[in-house]
């Protein structure tokens, strides 16, 4: 390791004989991770305060010996190097921070004994009900018992008995017997969710996790406690007993409920999604996500899902529908309603279609209340994408008043609606009746009732794409499950429409399409879908600095101060 140790904020530490320069104050668990040394732990979590209660991360700590009188280093004649004074007692890795010359040993007999001891203690009152436990397969207790435990039990006494199924709130079920009292959930509720409802009652080994009297764990972040629970104590009431985790395929995705764009993992098996959990991104969502974003996968198999291409209420095939749509679009007086929920690629194609038809393009804003954490006021995941691709030039409003006026004035005869319910955006039934509607989208609504052409497309869980979040961070998502029968990939539909209305013939393959996007969209130049990192890329947003975004603060986003 030859890292620049002379930088003022870096200090060199030695872990199991490996030297590494780390920022001063980095704790031993994180520093050890950098040199490939695993320091097992339960209570420590990189995004929560350090409490040091599990005692699993005990390590031996030493510092270079200095003569107290002369302040000169004491050299060990045996090695010719500066002697290390090892502390007799083991220290917690989570609470030991890097200082110059810090030496750490994790492989000594003492540390082996410490870990075996803690593992044994944690297991004596543990029910060992792995065969019916949801955490099995992703359980720290299982992993570390295998890695650091003795492998047998010396405990012949009665185990403690605790409540097995406490409803802590609408979405979280607690099995107290499995709890190792690490307090991660308590700290999360207090420090991150700012909803201090959890605590321990009773003492010693009889300590029990519970909600404060009259309170419930019901905030919109409650399921993060399930994610960070190192054992099977806190379980998701929705996911509980549904599927063994080792059968599940993981696909990266993005939470679409607001412009925060929390990074997620979608867990699926045989075409069915079972759960969504957060994916760590220290610049966006840390390791958290809202509960509300975890149930969005249910839209895939929702009853209102559009699953048949229709022309004038009759089933049709894709080419027939596209050709009917093209006829309508070519009659002129077209308006296009794009979507802040469409991907960058879809918005790019929508913009191209609008250009080919010389039609105005609108977008519908969705505004809610921001929670200052991971749900922002802008409830579209990709408003910025519409700006970056040039689909829109100013911020959208929630109501399509301009379009409504144009329809009333007879200036718009055909509307191409991309996954937006025009009725919900303020168009009356009379106005919808006055125009021909081509609907490209996923779910039925008042607009699809009135539409002449319906082209069912994919949800975010069935396709690949990118969104640009409130930080102008381009982030990608991937198809987790095969699409529902009767639906067509959005890019296929849009490229066909584009070609049919006289635009360029573009590839519907996202990787090829990106060569065009990178060539045509200034801010996306040089980027490609295939090489986009999983944590995203922040775009230059100076072009949009003057737009009056009003989303308010979130976890890693501060609105530019308006002077």
């Amino acid at each position, binding site marked *: 390791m030859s890292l620049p140790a002379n930088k003022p904020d870096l200090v060199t530490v030695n872990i199991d004989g490996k030297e590494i320069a780390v920022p001063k104050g980095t704790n031993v668990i994180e520093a050890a991770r950098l040199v490939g040394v695993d320091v097992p732990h339960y209570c420590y979590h990189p995004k929560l305060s350090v409490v040091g209660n599990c005692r699993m991360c005990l390590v031996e700590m030493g510092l270079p010996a200095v003569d107290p009188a002369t302040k000169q280093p004491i050299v060990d004649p045996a090695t010719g190097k500066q002697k290390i004074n090892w502390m007799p007692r083991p220290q917690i890795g989570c609470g030991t921070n890097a200082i110059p010359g810090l030496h750490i040993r994790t492989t000594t007999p003492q540390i082996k004994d410490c870990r075996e001891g803690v593992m044994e203690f944690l297991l004596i009152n543990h029910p060992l009900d792995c065969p019916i436990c949801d955490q099995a397969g992703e359980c720290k207790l299982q992993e570390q018992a295998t890695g650091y435990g003795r492998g047998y039990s010396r405990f012949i006494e009665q185990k403690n008995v605790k409540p097995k199924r406490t409803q802590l709130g609408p979405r979280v079920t607690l099995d107290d017997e499995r709890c190792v009292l690490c307090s991660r959930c308590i700290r999360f509720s207090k420090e991150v969710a700012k909803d201090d409802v959890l*605590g321990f009652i009773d*003492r010693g*080994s009889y300590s029990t996790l519970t909600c404060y009297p009259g309170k419930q764990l019901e905030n919109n972040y409650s399921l993060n406690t399930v994610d960070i629970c190192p054992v099977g104590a806190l379980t998701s009431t929705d996911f509980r007993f549904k599927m063994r985790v080792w059968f599940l395929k993981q696909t990266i995705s993005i939470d679409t409920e607001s412009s925060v764009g929390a990074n997620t993992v979608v867990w699926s098996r045989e075409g069915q999604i079972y759960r969504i959990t957060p994916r760590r991104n220290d610049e966006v969502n840390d390791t958290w996500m809202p509960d509300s974003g975890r149930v969005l996968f249910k839209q895939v198999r929702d009853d209102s899902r559009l699953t048949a291409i229709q022309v004038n209420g009759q089933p049709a095939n894709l080419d027939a529908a596209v050709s009917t749509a093209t006829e309508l679009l070519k009659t002129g007086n077209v308006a296009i309603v794009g979507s802040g929920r469409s991907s960058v690629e879809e918005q790019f194609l929508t913009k191209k279609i609008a250009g080919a038809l010389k039609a105005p393009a609108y977008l519908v804003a969705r505004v809610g209340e921001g929670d200052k954490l991971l749900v922002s006021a802008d409830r579209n995941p990709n408003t910025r994408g519409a700006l970056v691709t040039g689909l829109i030039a100013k911020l959208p409003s929630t109501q399509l008043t301009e379009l409504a006026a144009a329809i009333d004035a007879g200036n718009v005869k055909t509307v191409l609606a991309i996954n937006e319910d025009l009725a919900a955006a303020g168009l009356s039934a009379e106005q919808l009746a006055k125009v021909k509607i081509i609907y490209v989208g996923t779910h039925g609504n008042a607009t699809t009732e009135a539409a002449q052409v319906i082209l069912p497309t994919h949800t975010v869980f069935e396709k690949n794409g990118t969104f640009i979040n409130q930080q102008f961070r381009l982030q990608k998502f991937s198809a987790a499950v095969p699409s529902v029968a009767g639906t067509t990939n959005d890019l296929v539909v849009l490229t066909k429409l584009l070609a049919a209305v006289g635009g360029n013939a573009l590839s519907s393959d996202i990787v090829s399409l990106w060569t065009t996007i990178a060539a045509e969209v200034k801010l996306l130049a040089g980027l490609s879908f295939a090489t986009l990192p999983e944590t995203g890329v922040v775009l230059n947003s100076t072009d949009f600095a003057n737009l009056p975004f009003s989303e308010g603060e979130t976890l890693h986003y501060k609105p530019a101060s308006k002077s």
Partner: protein
Amino acid sequence: MSAPEQRRLIFKHIDEPGYTNDLACYVRNGGYEVLKKSVARKPEEIVDEVKKSGLRGRGGAGFPCGVKWSLLDRKSGKPIYLVVNADESEPGTFKDRYIIHQDPHQLLEGIMITCFANNVKQAYIYIRGEFPHGARILEKAIAEARAANFVGPNVLGTTYSCEILVHRGAGAYICGEETGLIESLEGKRPYPRIKPPYFPAVLGLYQCPTIVNNVETLCHVKHIADFGSEAYSKIGTPNNTGTRILCVSGHVQRPGYYEYEVGKITLGQLLNDVCGGPLPGRTFKGVIPGGSSAKILRFGETFTLKNKDGSSRTLTVEDIPMDFDTLAACGTMGGSGGVIVMDDSVNMVDALANLNAFYAHESCGQCTPCREGSLWMKKITARMVHGDARSEDGTLLKSVADQIAGRTICAMGEACAWPTQSFVQKFGDEFKAYPETKNAPKPAGALELV
């Protein structure tokens, strides 16, 4: 050699006929004169006196009091607090309660001198929940002292002001641990804090620099401020200065509290001469010299200790002087001064079962080894006593205790492990033989286990 005379410094007036715990009586006996002297001095002088006096904490760890004070972060700009640890909860210890009950103003004077010396504007007396009467006495004493201007705004007409507040605990051993006590005082569960970073002298009560001192320690401060560090440090023995109160309980003729110069009396003198020796027909078997968490000494064992000149000396249990350093060198500790004596009527497994039940009940549950280990040890000894004892249980007990000591957030790890470690180490034969001996008839008059 017969025992030396008691040196009653702190307990001067305890049990004195006619001595009452009101202010008038205290003032009649020269009370608050030292405070009057002290507020006219420079605060640093008093800190310096305490440092030079060599006073060591009387709560359990024996940490030098002056060093504790000098670690205070005085430059933080934050207020400095004094927290008086009156949570006397170590089994076998009953000294602070007599100070509180019979001579509360001595404590208040010590508190005020300490506060003045360290620029403390607010002191808290954290008194254990089981001392409701003591709390009432302290509150009355504070009100009297306040009315007489010894406490409160502009103490004795100076510009210095300081308030004292009594806070009652709710009955938990762990609140005697200084950072657990601070958490409790802040209104939280008394989970001891991790050190580093939460050293009370820097990040104590409300994250401000805080001194936590034991009741007896603060009374000593009054006497140091009175006679000066030089005269004080002549009491006792080098590095073990002053007097200390020894609370003797268990199987002796005259249990009780006795105050001696530190190190001037041996354990043998204390138990045989002062306390009248064992009960008729019995012999001493073991003694815990510093509160129930201290390691037990077995009568008959000897200790070979190094002298300063390199030679060595051999001590029997009876030879050990009751000071901090020699007891530590013999593998136990002076602790809180609670001397618990057990004679040959006691079965050591039964005795350990009792101690283990206490520590399992008092483990706060924060960190794994103490939480799970203390209950496991309790379950083992309870099974041995009430169910099936196995000859290998002693070895298992020791191994469990070894997995606790030195690996926990606070000293409760040692507190619960040391009894088991020492009982099994020193009376291992009894643990091995327990399956056969447990049902043997006990000597007449032996205590029945609950």
